[in-house]
């Protein structure tokens, strides 16, 4: 709707999915969390199961917009809109979510990385809709953090970092997933940072090395909200804080 208000979009046809059934449930099972496209932010906020089943998702969604908007905004709407600063696409990228897409040609399941193809652009065809976002299972001992920075609470983040990893028997990091929002034309994974973290124990030196890797791996554009260099510094700082927080 803001796109219409700004006259950035002028669709000839707009379809409200409000009356479509079966898309508004949060299913939690052994294979992870399945979010129907019509699940609203307030539904995620009030689902107490998610504190254990996907705390990263629950924390990230607290940062979405304002109270009134969380009463209306949906998982499917956010993913299909594909704003590079938005939390849900960032979590989907970081967690390697699988997206169910339904169209006249049938149903296909795509990785988040193949869905977000550019700024406000997805691989959805005009006759397709997103019906479900499937976040893989969340081990109980998993470490995680979500941090973002915005001038006012509820604004789009100038930058944000989502991360999770597991620990092996020697407390070394395995399967690190680190994602960033607001710093590229789409939500991204910081694979170089993940490589720095994997197989190592978390300590101050590793955090410094991870932050340095984050600085090297992004080159955000400058805009009216923040210069690119500032966003780069934000990601490095948020990553360091997030890693510290994850160990606490």
């Amino acid at each position: 709707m803001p796109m219409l208000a700004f006259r950035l979009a002028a669709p000839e046809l707009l379809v409200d999915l409000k009356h479509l059934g079966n898309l508004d449930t949060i299913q939690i099972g052994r294979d992870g969390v399945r979010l129907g496209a019509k699940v609203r932010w307030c539904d995620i906020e009030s689902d107490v199961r998610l504190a254990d089943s996907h705390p990263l998702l629950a924390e990230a969604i607290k940062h979405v917009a304002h109270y009134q908007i969380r009463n209306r905004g949906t998982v499917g709407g956010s993913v299909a809109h594909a704003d590079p600063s938005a939390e849900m696409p960032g979590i989907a990228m970081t967690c390697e979510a699988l997206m169910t897409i339904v169209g006249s040609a049938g149903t296909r399941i795509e990785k988040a990385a193949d869905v977000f193809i550019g700024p406000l652009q997805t691989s959805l065809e005009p006759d397709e809709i997103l019906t479900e976002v499937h976040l893989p299972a969340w081990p109980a001992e998993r470490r995680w953090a979500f941090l973002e920075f915005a001038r006012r609470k509820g604004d789009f983040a100038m930058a944000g970092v989502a991360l999770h990893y597991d620990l092996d028997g020697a407390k070394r990091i395995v399967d690190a997933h680190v994602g960033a929002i607001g710093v590229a034309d789409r939500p991204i994974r910081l694979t170089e940072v993940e490589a720095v973290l994997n197989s190592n124990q978390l300590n101050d030196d590793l955090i410094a090395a991870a932050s340095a890797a984050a600085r090297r791996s992004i080159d955000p554009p400058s805009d009216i909200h923040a210069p690119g260099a500032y966003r780069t510094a934000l990601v490095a700082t948020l990553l360091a804080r997030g890693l510290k927080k994850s160990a606490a």
Partner: protein
Amino acid sequence: MQVEFDLNGQSVSADVEPRTTLADCIRGNFGQTGTHLACEHGVCGACTVLVNGEAVRSCLLLAVQVQGDKIVTVEGLSGAELTPLQAAFRKHHALQCGFCTPGFITTAHAVLTRVRERSDESVQFLYRAPDGACRGSAHGARQRNVCC
């Protein structure tokens, strides 16, 4: 397009362009001008109304989307007397220019209703989730109000 809904307890219908926002419909078609428009893209919160009891931005909804829904604006919250919340806003002068106050009243009303309905919630819920972009100086008074 024809749309019918319940506005502050009255069944209403209007013939609106599909692009008409709920805010414009409430104000233009039904003369309920308590709902204020400022940013018109979902940031400021001045236009907040209740749709089936939930606080939403009426600038981010098309009028045709509320077919069959129950809409309450700031005009519909009270009868002959102010609600306790409205009276508290008045007593503590919880506003500066007052333009966005209808949005704060409707939002706080919805949050307090929710707090009453769910014992596990608290008013902190509202503090965690600021509801508007008022640049005035009344934040402290507004928070005291909602706590009363």
